[in-house]
């Protein structure tokens, strides 16, 4: 276990090895201009399970999340070092088209961001631009399946032509998840997907996450420790750009090994 005095945060966990690894981070450093935001993070994120990233604001959890689908590239001064592999494929390889990568690795943000289009078009957009549907009937089927998987179909089936922005916050977030699912991703990244939602809408999203993990590798950044405990199988705790501790969620919340993890999850940080 990394001693708290060093900057190295290479923390593998045996449990991650026994689960089928989907994403492998190896010596990942991220810089914003001259400032180093992530220090030498290495971890294996298992497939078909939910991995939660927790830590105080500014600890680098969202930054790490965004390296997985190269979203940091959209920030000019951001620079990523190290290896990030999905099923062994190097994400940062020149041969990888970020647009294709982001279809493989879907993302859901804190604030639901449906397109100013109909509910139908929101979901159909991805399959259309990626040429995933062979015709109208095929596209209809993708839209219906995606909305069903996102637990939204019953609420919107009779008003698919209405604007997605007219839905409630929780419905919008599920619409965005349906949009991500529609392009058949392998990984879904969620950056505080429930922080703008009320408890009922949050519970629906959490239920959805639990169902989705049967088919996807899900990584969720959350400020709510209770949410991390409820939805995830693995939890990673970040602090000041270090991966401090990574292990099965149950262990992290009942018996963390690192004093910094202990202090954070019990509310003793200060």
């Amino acid at each position, binding site marked *: 276990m990394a001693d708290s005095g060093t900057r190295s945060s290479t923390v593998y966990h045996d449990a991650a090895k026994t689960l089928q690894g989907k994403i492998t981070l190896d010596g990942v450093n991220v810089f914003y201009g001259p400032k180093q935001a992530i220090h030498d993070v290495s971890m294996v994120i298992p497939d078909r399970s939910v991995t939660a990233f927790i830590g105080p604001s500014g600890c680098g959890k969202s930054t790490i999340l965004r390296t997985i689908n190269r979203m940091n590239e959209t920030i000019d001064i951001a620079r990523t070092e190290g290896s990030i592999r999905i099923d062994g494929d190097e994400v940062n390889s020149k041969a990888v088209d970020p647009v294709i990568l982001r279809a493989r690795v879907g993302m859901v943000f804190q604030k639901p961001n449906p397109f100013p289009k109909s509910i139908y078009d929101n979901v159909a957009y991805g399959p259309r631009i990626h040429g995933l549907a062979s015709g109208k009937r095929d596209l209809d089927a993708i839209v219906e399946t995606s909305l069903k998987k996102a637990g939204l179909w019953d609420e919107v089936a009779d008003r698919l032509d209405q604007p997605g922005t007219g839905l409630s916050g929780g419905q919008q977030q599920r619409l965005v998840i349906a949009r991500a699912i529609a392009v058949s991703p392998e990984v879904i990244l969620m950056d505080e997907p429930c922080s703008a939602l009320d408890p009922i809408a949050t519970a629906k999203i959490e239920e959805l996450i639990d169902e989705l993990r049967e088919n996807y590798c899900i990584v969720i950044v959350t400020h709510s*420790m*209770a949410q991390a*405990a409820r939805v995830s199988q693995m939890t990673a705790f970040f602090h000041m750009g270090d991966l401090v501790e990574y292990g099965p969620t149950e262990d*992290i*919340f*009942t*018996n*963390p090994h690192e004093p910094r*993890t*202990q*202090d954070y*999850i*019990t*509310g*003793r*940080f*200060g």
Partner: protein
Amino acid sequence: MNNQLHAHTVRAYSDELNALSDEIARMGGLCESQVSDCIAAVMRRDPALADQVVEGDHQVDALESATEKRVIRMLALRQPMASDLRATIAAYRISGDLERIGDLAKNIARRTHELNKSEPLELTRSVERMGKLVVANLHRVLDAFSAGSAEEAIAVCRSDEEVDEHYNSLFRELLSFMIEDPRTITASAHLLFVAKNLERIGDHTTNIAEMIHYLVTGNELHREIRRDPGDVA
């Protein structure tokens, strides 16, 4: 108990956790004197002291109920995690064991009146020795709780073996006593129950030690570890 950790950002939460361990310490101290008093009552054939123990059990029960309420409140309102979660659960379980110890002490005290109806038995001394060991272990386990010492907790678990041996030999001796002289059967039977209750107090003390080990280390104390001194690092 929480001294080695930083204080909580929410001070009232730290206060509640401290109050919880204070309550356990208070309840433990009370139980310790209940157990030593009940043994003294039997030894000295002192009915007044016996009544005092019986009366004192209400206080133990009240403390258990207060602890239970506090634990439920904390689980509902604070959602304790990690070491706080373990401290809360351990307090709940320990208070349950202490309450049972209180009941067993009361039961021993009540037998004073019955034992006083017959001639003193020679074996009462063996019971006294066993009682001293049980009280010593209880004292030690409460110290282990205050100090947050997993090593001491393991030592208490091991020491319970000796209590069990005491009980087994007393059982055999009392049995032969009864066979030899059937007139001692009533008193011997009561003394046997006293010994049995002391043995049960030893078991509850062991449970407390196991909870302390869990509280401090986060790991269960496995049977093998506590049985085999060679196993411990």
